[in-house]
């Protein structure tokens, strides 16, 4: 017993060390979303092309909601992945043009290609607040009932697609019939 008490500080030290060591590798930049398993917030806005959109216009199947802006360099890095997804018809992608200017957004899509079904124009960032967005790029996975099921913060490249989105989509497709 006394031996155990003698070693107790050492045991506590190592337990703490392991705990704190793991903490070093936590991604503190990626905050959990409050909107997981909640319906997409209501909106009545226009697209980048000037057409009116509301929740009714969203795809009635599983889709991605990508927050982007013409000023956003990481968006350019993930852009090829969304182009591929759109070309191969793997999943519809809806854009949210976040805190941008309409003209700049149209130019950006013209220059780099447009993988989006449509892009919701959110110049003021107000819709972004309802989504809990804190900076482009972010990508939400929304199910066929319009419920947000997953959020990825920062670049969604091919490896993120493979490791995070394919399993999440497979789970959704397995759980609920499309």
């Amino acid at each position, binding site marked *: 017993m006394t031996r155990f008490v003698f070693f107790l500080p050492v045991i506590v030290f190592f337990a703490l060390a392991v705990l704190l060591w793991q903490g070093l590798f936590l991604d503190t930049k990626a905050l959990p979303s409050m909107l997981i398993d909640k319906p997409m917030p209501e909106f009545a806005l226009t697209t980048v092309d000037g057409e009116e959109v509301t929740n009714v216009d969203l795809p009635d199947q599983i889709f991605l909601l990508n927050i982007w802006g013409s000023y956003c360099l990481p968006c350019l890095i993930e852009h090829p992945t969304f182009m591929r997804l759109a070309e191969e018809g793997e999943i519809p992608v809806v854009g949210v043009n976040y805190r941008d200017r309409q003209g700049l957004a149209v130019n950006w899509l013209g220059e780099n290609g447009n993988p989006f079904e449509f892009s919701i124009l959110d110049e003021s960032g107000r819709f972004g607040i309802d989504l809990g967005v*804190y*900076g482009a790029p972010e990508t939400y996975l929304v199910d066929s009932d319009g419920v947000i099921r997953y959020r990825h913060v920062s670049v969604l490249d091919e490896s993120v697609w493979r490791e995070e989105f394919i399993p999440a989509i497979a789970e959704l497709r397995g759980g609920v019939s499309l």
Partner: protein
Amino acid sequence: MSKLNLFFCLFLVLLMFGNPRASVAQVDTFEFQTTEQQQRFRKLSDELRCPMCQNTNLSGSTGGVAQDLRREIHRMIVEGLTDVDIEEFMFDRYGDFIFYKPRFRAETAVLWFAPILFLLLGFAGGYIVWLKSKKSVDESESLDASQLNRLNDLLDSKQ
């Protein structure tokens, strides 16, 4: 060297009393109907944390989302919402992270109670150590009858 150390320590102590918020507040041109509203705006944007920059409050952040959230706080204050309503609005969208002082909930109970728990553990540990040292002192200082006899013999033989 020790003088230098002393000055350094004094400097650190002075830093502790500084108000980091005062020097970095962003200037917005919001208009309020009353000074009370303005004070509430200042208090809220001081106490809420910028989700993008992470170690800055809303009032000190140049980040886009912080600008937008300050605008929303202003809108809600002018529309007559209470501080509780505004905090609820922020919580629904950004969660506990937005508060520098997290709300007391089941998920945050550990945050609130851990310091008290550690303090009590520390006191308990200290008390045990103190008890033990007291006990060992008592034991080493008091002599039993045969030890006392031997001591007296030794003292006698010296004389």
